[in-house]
């Protein structure tokens, strides 16, 4: 018995805007009357699907687990991207500019910033002391940590408005990784949890 449902056939349609034409022979019908101006609707002839052959682009998003992703990691990464832009701008300044830093300082500062990001430090404020160093600064209530980065030395200074509490210097060549959590611990006067991972994967 013929019913409305078994008489219905799927029909490929194509929608064109006013400036486009399909190759000859691809169309089954003249434009279908519609109120979709400025677009025109056509039925496609059998075998003409290659006219609009599609090219799939697939991307594996990520494995999805029930656990909640750590949002702060991506925020931290964004803040460090801004720090990277700032360092790039300091390098690009004119030779006579008082904010300009030298190339060797720039490379060491970028490396130190990348290490700080790995150790989940909050992104620091940055300022310069002339072309031969940049200073990263973190404030914690009345305590400040200043990390002065030059081409060959890393100098940490922990101070309050009243006095310098501690000053430590390291050569930048071959910095042991635990330097950064240790400095943070000294500034905050409490232990810092630093998780050493055996796995080599990247944080999200």
């Amino acid at each position, binding site marked *: 018995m013929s019913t409305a449902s078994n008489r219905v056939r799927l029909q490929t349609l*194509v*929608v064109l805007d006013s400036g486009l034409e399909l190759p000859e022979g691809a169309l089954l019908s003249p434009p279908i009357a519609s109120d979709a101006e400025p677009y025109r609707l056509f039925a496609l002839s059998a075998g003409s699907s290659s006219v609009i052959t*599609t090219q799939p682009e*697939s*991307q594996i*998003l990520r494995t999805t687990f029930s656990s909640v992703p750590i949002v702060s990691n991506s925020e931290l990464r964004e803040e460090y991207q801004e720090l*990277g832009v700032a360092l790039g701008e300091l390098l690009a300044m004119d030779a006579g500019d008082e904010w300009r830093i030298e190339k060797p300082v720039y490379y060491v500062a970028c490396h130190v910033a990348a290490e700080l990001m790995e150790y989940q430090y909050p992104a620091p404020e940055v300022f310069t002391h002339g072309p031969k160093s940049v200073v990263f600064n973190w404030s914690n209530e009345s305590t400040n940590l200043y990390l002065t980065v030059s081409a060959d030395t890393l100098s940490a200074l922990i101070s309050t408005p009243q006095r310098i509490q501690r000053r430590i210097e390291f050569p930048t060549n*071959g910095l042991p990784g635990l330097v950064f959590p240790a400095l943070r611990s000294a500034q905050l006067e409490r232990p810092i949890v630093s998780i050493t991972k055996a*796995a*080599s994967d990247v944080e999200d």
Partner: protein
Amino acid sequence: MGEWKVLNARITFFTVGPVSSSDQSALSVYRQFWEADPDSFQKQPNPLAPSMAQGRRGGLLAACTVNPTRTDLNLAAADTDVQGPHPTLSLIEDAGQLRVELTRITDAVGRGVISRALNRVALYVQFVATKPTLLAVNKTLMSIIPDGYRPNLTDEESFIFQINRPQVLPDVEQLRMNYITKWSAESIRVVTMLLPRDPAVRMGPPNIGSPIFGEFLAASLSFDINNVPAPKPLTPPQQSSLLLNGMAWAAETQRTCGLNIEGFDSVNRLE
């Protein structure tokens, strides 16, 4: 065990100390490892962001990412040219080709093509078997977890079990290596965007231009083999030796677990 395929593999080099003005971008790293230009390259947008390059190597998609503190070489299946609108999970069909590419990388590393000072290298390989249900995923996982560790799984979700069997390598400066094995139930989401081949054709079926999501359940076995950071930079032969050691271990362990991936069951240097 023909149901198991490689989802992806990665070799990572960890940098020690600041990089210099002559530091390699992803473009130059890609060219040095694969002796060809990539299909796409994105330069470093700022000094703390990565540069990226990727291209096809036969049925594989090779991608190189250079970060300030690490360089990653990723290998996955190149997308197949599917006409249908349904997303598919691309898996590496030819594990032998993957093994050849990984070996090519380790050989090139031994010749010193990475100009950065490195104190750590890593090899990661993930094998998966896609299944229609969570019950089937868990059953598959139980079949490959060794007797001493095997839990009793039925319909639990998000199963993960990971162990590390570190060893000291007397031949390479007494370095300690991590040999991590992870069994897990994975839910992998794939998004497909259909685009017209001819950019002039901007219109078409309603799904063109709209993302289509597909979700796949899979039993997964992954290996992460890496050395703990060495006290001084590794020489190129040491880097190569550690990676070859990792590949040999991965080949042996997948066989022990019963995956028997054809083409990935032995590791030899390229002639």
